[in-house]
C-alpha cells in the first residue's frame, strides 16, 4: 500500500484560553491546506479524530462543525478511539483513498480540554477506561499507568530513574519544538521530586492537559507529485484492540494491541523493525514509552529501561523516539495527538525538523494508543 501526505498543519499545543475547538481545528486545517497547496474544493472527505468534545465542551457532531466552518459540504466523519482517535482518523483517511472513493482527504484531530477543571478532565478521560469496572472504583489514568509501571518494575527490575529518563529526554526534545507546550529542560531529580500523582508516578511523569489541533492532507500516491516535490508516503497501517479494562488483559506489562498493530504494519510495509529510523510513540505517561519501545520491538521485553540508560532513543541514538517531545512535552490534546505524531515524522522525513532533525531519516513510525491499551494504531512512513 502507499498513500501520500502532501501537507501538514498544527496549532501550537498548550493552554489556549482564548481559542475554541472550532478555532483550533480551522487553524490546523487551514495550515495543512496551505502547506499542501491544494484548493479546499479539491478535498473529498474529512476524518476528524476527537475523543470527547461532548464531555469537554458539550459539543458533539464536531466533524460537520469543522467542514461547515471550512465552507465544504463533503462527507465529514468524526472518529473516536479515545486517545488513539487521531491515529484512527489518519487510518480511516488512508482507507477511504485506498478504497478508490477519494483522491484527497483531510485527516485531522482536535481536542479542547482546558474548559474543564482538572477533576472534570480527569473524569472525562476515564471514559476511555472501563466505566463500570475501573472508573466506578475511583481509578484514574495516572493510576492505571502507575499500576503498569509498578508491575514492570516488579517483573523486570525497571528503576524509577529509568522511567524518569523518558520525561527528561522528551522535555529536551520538546525544548527544540516550537509547537510544544513545554519548552523547558528537566532533570531526573526534578521528575522524582515533583508532586506525586499516582505512586510511583509524579506530575512530571504525566502528559499534561492540552488544547490543540493537527491536520494532514492525504493524497492518492499517483497524484502526489502534482502538488509537492517531497511527498511522504504511508506504507504500513495496523490497528488492533484489546479489552477496555487493564485487569482483563493477558499481561499487565505488554500492550498486546501494540504488538499486533505493529506486526500488521511492518508486514504491510515490507520492512522489519531494524529499518525504522525514528518513532513517535504514545508516551501519555513515561512508563508507556518504555512499554511501547519493547512492544514495537526496538528492544527485548523488559529492556525498555536499559534503552534509556544507553541513550539509544535520544535524538542522536540508534532509534530516536519522540523527537517532537512526545505527548509528554508537546502536550496531549487527546484527539489530535495521533495526527501530530504523523506530522513530526513527515517533518523529519522531509528534513524540516530543524534542531530536532534526525540525520538521514528515511523510515519513521507512529504509535498511538487509546485508553490503557484497548486500542493501538501503528503507521509506517517513508520518503
Amino acid at each position, binding site marked *: 500500500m502507499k498513500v501520500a501526505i502532501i501537507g501538514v498543519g498544527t496549532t501550537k499545543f498548550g493552554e489556549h484560553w482564548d481559542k475554541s475547538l472550532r478555532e483550533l481545528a480551522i487553524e490546523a486545517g487551514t495550515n495543512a491546506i496551505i502547506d499542501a497547496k491544494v484548493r479546499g474544493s479539491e478535498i473529498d472527505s474529512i476524518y476528524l479524530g476527537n475523543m470527547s468534545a461532548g464531555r469537554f465542551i458539550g459539543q458533539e457532531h464536531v466533524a460537520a462543525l469543522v467542514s461547515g466552518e471550512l465552507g465544504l459540504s463533503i462527507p465529514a466523519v468524526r472518529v473516536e478511539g479515545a486517545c488513539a482517535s487521531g491515529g484512527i482518523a489518519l487510518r480511516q483517511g488512508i482507507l477511504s483513498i485506498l478504497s478508490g472513493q477519494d483522491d484527497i482527504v483531510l485527516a485531522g484531530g482536535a481536542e479542547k480540554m482546558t474548559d474543564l477543571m482538572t477533576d472534570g478532565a480527569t473524569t472525562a478521560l476515564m471514559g476511555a477506561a472501563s466505566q463500570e469496572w475501573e472508573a*466506578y*472504583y*475511583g481509578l484514574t489514568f495516572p493510576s492505571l499507568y502507575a499500576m503498569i509501571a509498578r508491575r514492570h518494575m516488579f517483573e523486570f527490575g525497571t528503576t524509577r530513574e529509568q522511567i524518569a529518563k523518558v520525561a527528561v529526554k522528551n522535555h529536551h526534545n520538546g525544548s527544540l519544538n516550537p509547537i510544544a507546550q513545554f519548552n523547558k529542560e528537566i532533570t531526573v531529580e526534578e521528575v522524582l521530586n515533583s508532586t506525586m500523582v499516582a505512586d510511583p508516578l509524579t506530575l512530571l511523569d504525566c502528559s499534561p492537559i492540552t488544547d490543540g489541533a493537527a491536520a494532514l492532507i492525504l493524497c492518492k500516491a499517483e497524484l502526489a507529485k502534482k502538488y509537492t516535490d517531497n511527498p511522504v508516503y504511508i506504507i504500513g497501517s495496523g490497528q488492533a484492540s484489546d479489552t477496555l479494562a487493564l485487569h482483563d488483559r493477558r499481561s499487565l506489562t505488554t500492550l498486546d494491541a501494540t504488538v499486533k498493530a505493529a506486526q500488521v504494519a511492518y508486514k504491510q510495509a515490507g520492512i522489519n523493525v531494524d529499518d525504522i529510523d525514528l518513532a513517535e510513540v504514545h508516551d501519555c505517561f513515561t512508563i508507556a514509552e518504555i512499554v511501547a519501545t519493547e512492544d514495537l520491538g526496538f528492544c527485548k521485553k523488559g529492556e525498555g529501561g536499559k534503552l534509556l540508560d544507553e541513550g539509544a532513543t535520544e535524538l542522536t541514538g540508534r532509534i530516536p523516539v519522540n523527537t517532537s517531545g512526545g505527548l509528554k512535552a508537546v502536550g496531549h490534546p487527546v484527539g489530535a495527538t495521533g495526527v501530530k505524531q504523523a506530522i513530526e515524522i513527515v517533518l523529519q522525513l522531509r528534513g524540516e525538523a530543524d534542531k530536532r532533525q534526525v540525520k538521514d531519516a528515511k523510515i519513521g513510525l507512529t504509535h498511538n494508543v487509546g485508553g490503557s491499551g484497548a486500542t493501538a494504531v501503528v503507521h509506517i512512513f517513508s520518503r
Partner: protein
Amino acid sequence: MGYESSVPLFWRLIKPRYQLIGNKCTTCGNTFYPPKFLCPICRKEGKLEEIKLGKTGKILTFSIVRSAPTGFEKETPYPVAIIELDDGPRLTSQIVDWKEEDLQIGRKVEACFRRIYTDGKEGIINYGLKFRPI
C-alpha cells in the same frame, strides 16, 4: 466517578458488584469477573452460568491515587489495585484498612463492603466491594 447520577446504570450492576457474582463458561471452563455477556473464547459455542466467587485474592499491582476524579476528592490518598481472586479472575478496586507495608505485590486481601462514592449530597450512594489486607 461512575457516570453522573444515573440510577439504572448503578442499579443493574448491584448483584455482581455486591456479591462477586461472575460467570463460568461450561464449554471452556473459564471463569469471568466482571461477568461477561458472551464467552470471549468460545463465543457462540460458549455457555455462561452464574457463579459466586470467593472473597479472597492477592494484589497483582497497585498505585495510590493522589489526584482524584470527581466524587472521590475527599478520600485521597487512596490505594487502588488489580487483584487476582483465588478463584482466578482479576478485578480492579480500592484497598482499605491499609498500612504502608500492606501495599505489596502478592499481599493477600479479602473483599469488604464499602461506600464507593455518592452523587453529591442529594443523589444515591454507590456501594461495592473494596479489599482489605488479611
